[in-house]
């Protein structure tokens, strides 16, 4: 993967930039020793690494503003960073960039159950937002797999989803307001504890802009009352077609489960070996979760199980209690860890129309054969968000490159059947050069115009989202 070569003028004035930042943030707020900046050389896309010029760790919006103003004046690129859990390289530094990490900004600023909102500093982790309101009977709905570690800042930048968005939506549907600092240091207040914008919906375009329009330091999030109860049911099928048809029939029947998860045989076997969740050995496994009171759950399950039986299942198992529910989820939730135990893998994130599922799985199988690399499929079936895991050997020369090529082919396939390159991980550097598969030049041009307005010098999170060739005339 190609990155722009570092700006020699910036590299030459590192000492001056560090001095100015240290003066504004204090020595504690700036890291510039190469031994220490190394900790920031990559995010969860570990295949690509590059230590930054230096790192700033502000504690307030004012400090963020001061740091950005200095970088703006010095023409230094800035890479915003939440917890560094991006799988797309969204927080990958360039050698001439300053990493701006919000990890020290993790306070809860306000909780209000009457207005059903929480306002937090964005360095706070996703799960700890729910943690702050759980005892009050509420939760924060978006639940990416990395929720223990990932920061709200990154969730907003990538418009993160999770397993339960079929019912509750993704980050953009649960974000009411932000405090955001522009590259020139201007502090903006957008939205609040009220609903919808009075003018242009700037919040809508900021969410998912991968940290390229500004640094979000505070966020007002919608919190929801916890359901009375939730119960998963597990279903095993002997073909992808049967499982896919079952999902379609459940949705068409008017039941809206909170989650429908799908795993294929390689994934089932790995999870079973790892977590001993008691999964049947079959071609396709579905986990469907419904919510409500005991009676409501039973009523929904009745409908779902009737449909499930019509498709000739290998096994059906409804959890009878919390313990069984936890066991059903255990395997799915440890899927990535389980695969990691047996293999190096690359996790993809395309979305397809649910109806295209059997065809896409078949063609992924064909690609797997022709590349000679194994694939395990695990994904959110209700909303068509696929996570094929391509297995490779990082120690074998050429395997990573082969794996990346195959990944690109799968994502092209997603676009071809009417889907998209990324459902919830973001473009980052990983899918940057595939953007032309999904978009015409004028589509990308329109997106880049927004960046022109928010960050005219193109200093924020450089070399992400847009193919380098497309952004060449704009980048500093």
């Amino acid at each position, binding site marked *: 993967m190609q990155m722009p070569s570092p700006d020699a003028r910036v590299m030459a004035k590192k000492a001056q930039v560090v001095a100015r930042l240290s003066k504004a943030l204090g020595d504690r707020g700036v890291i510039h020793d190469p031994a220490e900046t190394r900790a920031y050389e990559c995010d969860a896309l570990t295949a690509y690494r590059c230590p930054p010029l230096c790192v700033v760790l502000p504690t307030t919006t004012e400090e963020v503003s001061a740091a950005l103003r200095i970088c703006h004046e010095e023409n230094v690129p800035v890479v915003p960073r939440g917890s560094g859990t991006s799988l797309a390289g969204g927080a990958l530094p360039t050698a001439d960039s300053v990493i701006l990490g919000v990890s020290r900004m993790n306070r809860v600023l306000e909780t209000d159950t009457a207005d059903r909102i929480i306002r937090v500093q964005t360095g706070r982790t996703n799960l700890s937002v729910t943690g702050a309101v759980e005892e009050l009977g509420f939760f924060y709905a978006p639940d990416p797999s990395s929720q223990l570690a990932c920061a709200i800042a990154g969730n907003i930048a990538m418009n993160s989803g999770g397993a339960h968005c079929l019912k509750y939506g993704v980050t953009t549907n649960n974000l009411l307001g932000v405090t955001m600092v522009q590259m020139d240091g201007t502090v903006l207040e957008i939205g609040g504890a009220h609903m919808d914008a009075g003018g242009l919906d700037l919040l809508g375009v900021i969410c998912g802009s991968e940290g390229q329009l500004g640094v979000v330091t505070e966020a007002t999030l919608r919190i929801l009352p916890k359901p009375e109860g939730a119960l998963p049911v597990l279903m095993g099928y002997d073909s992808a077609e049967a499982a896919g048809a079952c999902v379609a029939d459940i949705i068409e029947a008017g039941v809206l489960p909170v989650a429908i998860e799908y795993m294929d045989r390689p994934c089932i076997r790995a999870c079973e070996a790892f977590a001993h969740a008691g999964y049947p050995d079959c071609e396709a496994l579905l986990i469907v979760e419904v919510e409500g009171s005991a009676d409501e759950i039973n009523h929904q399950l009745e409908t779902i199980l009737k449909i499930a039986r019509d498709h000739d299942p290998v096994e059906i198992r409804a959890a009878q209690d919390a313990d069984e529910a936890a066991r059903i989820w255990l395997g799915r939730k440890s899927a990535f860890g389980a695969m990691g135990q047996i293999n190096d893998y690359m996790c993809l994130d395309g979305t397809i129309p649910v109806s295209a599922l059997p065809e896409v799985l078949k063609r992924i199988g064909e690609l797997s054969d022709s590349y000679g690399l194994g694939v395990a499929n695990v994904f959110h079936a209700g909303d068509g968000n696929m996570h094929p895991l391509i297995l490779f050997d990082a120690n074998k020369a050429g395997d990573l490159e082969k794996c990346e090529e195959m990944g690109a082919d799968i994502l092209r396939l997603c676009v071809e059947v009417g889907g998209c390159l990324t*459902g919830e991980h973001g473009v980052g550097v990983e899918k940057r050069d595939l953007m032309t598969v999904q978009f015409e030049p004028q589509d990308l041009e329109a997106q880049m115009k927004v960046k022109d307005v928010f960050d005219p010098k193109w200093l924020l999170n450089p070399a992400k989202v847009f193919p380098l060739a497309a952004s060449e005339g704009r980048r500093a």
Partner: protein
Amino acid sequence: MIRPGSEAELAEAVRDATGPVSVRGGGTRGLLPEGTPLTTSGLSGIVLHDPAALTLVARAGTPVEEIDAALAKANQRLAFEPMDHRALLGTTGTPTIGGVIAANVSGPRRMQVGAARDHLLGMRFVDGQGVIVKNGGRVMKNVTGYDLARLLAGSRGALGVITEVALKVLPGTETAANLVIRGLDDAAAVRAMSDALGTPFEVSGAAHDPHATGGPRTELRIEGFGASVAYRCRALAERLKAHGPWETETDRDAVRAHWRGLRDVAPFHGQTGDIWRVSVRPSEAAAVVARADATQAFYDWGGGLVWLRTSEGHDLRAKLGRYDGHATLVRATPETHAARQTLQPEPPALQSLTRGLRAKFDPRGILAA
């Protein structure tokens, strides 16, 4: 009136325009900016409905009623229940899906399921230079590139002319019921609605009409499968009994018709004066109304949306001062619209972003909005 029959024709019309173009769907929302009228009504028809994927794609000029009818056949619906402005504004014409998205029009269910923009999966539009742009797609989860579709939703045509939208649809509901309490003052009503919305019983409508026949009426809508609705009504009334006695209305068709009325702000129909729509933090709503010096108020979205009827030319924003929210002038004479401004004025930093975006997407200033 320019009435393009295709997206390509529309793009050509915008490219060829030499002065302001006043874009409209069905023209049901009254105030139309000055300029050569251009309607999207010639771009009509449902392009795709995939019930198993909960997805519908339609051209901008497609009448909302045509979409409602097609979805109903598959027992599905537009969950954000867009309001119909005709009775409130005394307009004619047919509401179109493009108009709904361009103004981000959402009904009572907004606080439970989200706004129109939350159901938007993708869009095609023509910018001020006549360039055709697509954004998003037709799948439920999509973070590929910037979310221009949401930026365009609610932009009232200021950045481009929407030609096609892809929407997430939801299953229909088997039945609906209402819990009603009488006689609460505004502050108590908002507290009761907040308490209701803080329960797990999935309240899908929460409104308060201080001027209802027979005295103030606060109501909560419960929808879903029959047994579930009955259970939740009981459980909710029990949970909320500190607010007073709640009555249950279970005639499904009557409840639905009644909420269609609330959706369209029926309490204001046939009344004179200016009409304002105020989005506000619910706990501030009663205080905002108290200082509004309005003739009539009506609360939706559990207090998060307040409709106000005032005397003509009333300077509402001056009365309201600072609060967490914004006010839009929905009905007034053109003079009042000009004097008071239709949209809430923005702080300078946001204003400069809005101006910057309009200049980028419409450098010639062709799109009147």
